[in-house]
């Protein structure tokens, strides 16, 4: 047993810290840390800065323009970029679709689409969930009917993040209703900038626009837009989800929130006393901090096991469940520590001079309520517990 981190990895960590300190525009970090959204333009600026360094597609191998990092380096990146408040870039394109195309794409797809992600020209969103298929993808309804060299696609995707800023969407579609339900599902790339594709925003609690409904009606999609074979979406989906298995811990973001919580605990509260002297509050903070430490080391432990060749167990579900719960607890503490100033509605605030409440507090409540989704989406906490139990019980 050994807690030390490889020298090379440690050096990379230092390099990242140094890079963020020198190159991350403070305004971008500020916005990211308090939960304000960056504009698409700002995202593109940051993309360009990262591209210069070669860190714009952190999950990609070198031959396709990525840094060629292993799992440990990626985890360090997750920690450091989260801690620094680096905006999470066009995540669906870079972390989800990119690796899928590299693994399953045709030479033509790779040649055409990867550069467009690298250049930030394409912004992809992911069309998985549907009104009648939330956690249970087997119930998928979006149809893709073969017609010559095209599919004709009709259906509705729900809870689609980033659809309002994306120009393309990859969808799970039903290409067959025969045989086992999963076998009829295919993975299809669809251009959103065409008639028949409608995006309607869904506002989440606190008025944040982060998800959408995407309606697709009689849209022709060339068969060449199929990734993998027809009916082969299941394996691709597993691969795609596997790629962010350890990301459910939200380690870096959680560490940055915890730092803010600890810092605010040290300040003077409404009753004129240092908040850290309130031992009930101090205990709650310490409890979440220790939870986060445990989560962080669980992530390292799973990763170390993985690197040493052990088959992954249900620990990934542990990480997903705890990562969401801890982020909810931290954002609640931040909101509570801000007392009444943390409870304002950011969309209603006057901006006519001196702000009513300090900038960094304006989004506290919105952030807290927005994070409510963490234990619901991407496989709810209930689903994760089913998975764990199935492994424990072999039922």
């Amino acid at each position: 047993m050994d807690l030390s981190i490889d020298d090379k990895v440690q050096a990379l960590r230092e390099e990242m810290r140094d890079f963020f300190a020198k190159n991350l525009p403070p305004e971008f970090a500020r916005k990211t840390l308090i939960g304000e959204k960056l504009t698409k333009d700002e995202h593109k600026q940051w993309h360009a800065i990262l591209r210069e360094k070669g860190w714009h597609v952190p999950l990609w191998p070198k031959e396709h323009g990525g840094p060629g990092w292993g799992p440990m380096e990626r985890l360090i990146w997750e920690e450091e970029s989260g801690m620094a408040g680096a905006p999470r870039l066009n995540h669906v394109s870079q972390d989800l679709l990119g690796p899928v195309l590299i693994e399953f794409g045709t030479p033509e797809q790779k040649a055409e689409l990867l550069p467009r992600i690298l250049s930030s020209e394409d912004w992809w969103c992911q069309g998985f969930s549907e009104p009648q298929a939330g956690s249970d993808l087997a119930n998928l309804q979006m149809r893709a009917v073969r017609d010559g060299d095209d599919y004709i696609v009709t259906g509705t995707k729900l809870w689609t993040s980033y659809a309002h800023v994306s120009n393309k969407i990859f969808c799970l579609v039903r290409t067959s209703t025969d045989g086992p339900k999963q076998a009829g599902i295919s993975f299809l790339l669809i251009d959103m900038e065409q008639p028949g594709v409608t995006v309607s925003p869904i506002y989440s609690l606190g008025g944040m626009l982060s998800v959408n409904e995407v309606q697709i009606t009689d849209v022709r999609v060339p068969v060449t837009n199929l990734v993998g074979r027809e009916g082969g979406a299941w394996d691709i989906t597993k691969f795609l989800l596997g790629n962010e298995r350890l990301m459910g811990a939200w380690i870096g973001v959680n560490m940055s929130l915890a730092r803010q919580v600890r810092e605010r605990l040290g300040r003077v509260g409404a009753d004129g006393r240092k908040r850290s002297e309130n031992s009930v509050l101090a205990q709650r903070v310490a409890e979440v901090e220790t939870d986060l430490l445990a989560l962080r080391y669980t992530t390292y432990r799973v990763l170390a096991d993985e690197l040493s060749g052990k088959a992954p167990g249900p620990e990934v579900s542990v990480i997903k469940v705890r990562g969401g719960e801890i982020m909810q607890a931290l954002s609640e503490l931040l909101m509570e520590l801000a007392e009444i100033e943390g409870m304002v509605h950011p969309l209603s605030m006057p901006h006519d001079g001196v702000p009513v409440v300090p900038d960094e507090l304006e989004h506290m409540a919105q952030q807290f309520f927005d994070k409510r989704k963490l234990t619901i989406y991407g496989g709810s906490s209930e689903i994760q517990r089913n998975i764990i139990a199935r492994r424990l019980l072999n039922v």
Partner: protein
Amino acid sequence: MDFNYDDNQRMLFDMVDRFLTDKHDLAKRAKLLTDPAAEAALWREMAELGLMGAAFPEEVGGFSTSPADPYVVMERFGRHLVTQPFLYTAVIGGRLLIEGLSGADREEEIGMVIAGERQLALAAGSAHMLRSAEDTAFAAVPDGNGWKISGRMPAVLNGDRADKLIVAARTAGASGELAGVTLFLVAADAAGISRRNFRMIDAQGAAEVVLDGVAVGAESVLGSVDGGAVLVETALDHGIAATCGEAIGSMEYLIEATAEYTRTREQYGAPLAKFQVLQHRMADMYIQTQTAKSMALVAALSLDGDPAERMRMVSAAKAQVGRSAKYVGYQAVQLHGGMGVSEELDIGHHYIRLNFINQLFGDGAFHLRRFGALAQAA
């Protein structure tokens, strides 16, 4: 011992419920939030219905026969997700008028509230959630026969709509002391007052309120000079009991709505209601709600009794209700899945309001501390 609404309360309940079923739903609520004129009209309608009278006993012009009557109103407000400031204007503001004024002044001021022609807001405290007046951000100094008040509160609840502010200002002693706080009833548009309006995360209105040497006369004092903090304590206890009713109404609605949703929504080939984990989650929502409800009713019924007992019961109720409200709201959202976190459904709005209520008037830790101190002293 009887925990059923009496005949008066049953009538009040039916009246409010019928009105809200008729005049209020999620879509209308959303419209109200962007339309001050519509909000004002609804308020007048409620006043015409006689609603405000539920917060005032007959001897001051209302029709309340039990201190628990506002609980009944707010319980329905909670169920229907009403954002109208009955709580701030009639319950808390009204209580301060009842206790702080007398004679013709009292008759007139309360008359305005009952007629729906006056909105009130309590500007007490500093950055906390309207917990007490001891650390108020305002200070008043004698000025001739009157006073000059200065100070700033970042968020006065219902401060945006208030015609008159009840300002708690320190007139003696040091911050944190119960004595030395005086209440002033001040016109919200008085010279030297500036306000900037916004909404809290639960969609209810608020304002930053700045007083810059606002001159008021001696007649504007509510209650006695230096004796205002105890009045605030009483008024907030009335506010808390009513708000507990609101939370119970909201929680009972969430349980029904969640049961209904899980009976109809299918996943993996079966209604969600067939999954034992979700069944037990709903059972826990019910356990939390029922026990909190008992405590909330007791708090409402203790309002006109011995003050120490009142405080003990109100704090026990607030802590319980807050904890239950957070749990029930969280699970209602969780069981509604994606729909729960969308603004399109009322579920998430209830969740936000219940979390707001947990913080409002002091959170669980604050009230358990108050309860414990009273218990240890007993």
